[in-house]
């Protein structure tokens, strides 16, 4: 399978699994890979994977060292590892330190994407506490990617998307249903 030319990075925390389900439910095949960075205990990473798989035909997998994100593939960052995309598009999980009190951190993954690495980059910040994802969204905006924050009114915890919005780097503030529709721009 070829590596994907487009990448979507979704950052999510408290209240996230329910929102992710809404966004990914019945999602058709895409000419993009989706990376999910969800703050969740290690014991639940596989449950999240199985849970999301029940709602989409796209394969949902836990990212492994050396993986290359592929089209129509959903990869979940494993708890305890920062998910970095290297210049050659290989996944690097070697960093295990916490950032913003979390591992994986949304910022780490988003900040690892470099300009011209992908044809199109989409960054999405969903529900959660704190401000993880804000720097990442600023970065994706700076490299001419598409930036989205969940409408805080629809988020169980609004501080994470609100922080991204306050940075001025968010182009679209959308409900989970609207985020689903926005991702369909990558439909094959």
């Amino acid at each position, binding site marked *: 399978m070829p590596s994907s030319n487009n990448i979507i990075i979704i950052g999510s*925390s*408290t*209240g996230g*699994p*329910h929102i992710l389900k809404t966004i990914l439910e019945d999602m058709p095949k895409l000419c993009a890979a989706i990376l999910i960075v969800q*703050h*969740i*205990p290690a*014991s*639940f990473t596989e*449950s999240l994977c*199985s*849970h999301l798989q*029940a709602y989409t035909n796209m394969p949902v997998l836990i990212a492994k060292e050396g993986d290359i994100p592929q089209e129509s593939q959903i990869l979940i960052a494993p*708890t305890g590892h920062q998910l970095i995309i290297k210049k050659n598009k290989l996944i690097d999980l070697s960093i295990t330190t916490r950032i*913003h*009190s*979390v591992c994986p951190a949304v910022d780490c993954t988003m900040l690892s994407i470099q300009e011209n690495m992908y044809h199109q980059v989409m960054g999405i910040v969903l529900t*959660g*506490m*704190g401000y993880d994802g804000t720097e990442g969204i600023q970065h994706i905006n700076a490299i001419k990617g598409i930036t989205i924050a969940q409408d805080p009114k629809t988020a*169980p*915890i*609004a*501080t994470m998307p609100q922080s991204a919005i306050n940075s001025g780097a968010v182009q679209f503030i959308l409900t989970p249903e609207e985020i689903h529709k926005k991702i369909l721009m990558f439909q094959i």
Partner: protein
Amino acid sequence: MKNIDSDEYQVMIVDDDAHIRIAVLETLSEENITTIAVQNGFECIEKLKSGFSGVILLDLMMPDMDGWDTVMEIISNDLFKDIIIVVLTARSVPDQKMISVQEYIFDYLVKPIEPEYLIEKVRYALEFLYL
């Protein structure tokens, strides 16, 4: 090792406010979701040590051992097994110390709790836990 009593329950409401405990018990029992009520974090920990597994609806603002203390106690005693924690709070903006344990908080419910919303959140958490 789970004991028989704990096996009977799917949900534990942990709140020092009796009105909240009763409201949650009534709402969930009408949905045939078996629920046990305890008044504080100490009792919650005891139930976990007795083998409770399921969804914990945890109030944040409690005397002596608050919600954060309870989560820390759960983690430090290696009791975070087969449970999902949903926090109940009157404040929609979490404080800094809750951010430090955010990965252990599956979801938030802001008081006053709408029964329909409570049922939806609990059903979803149970589905996730027992998938």
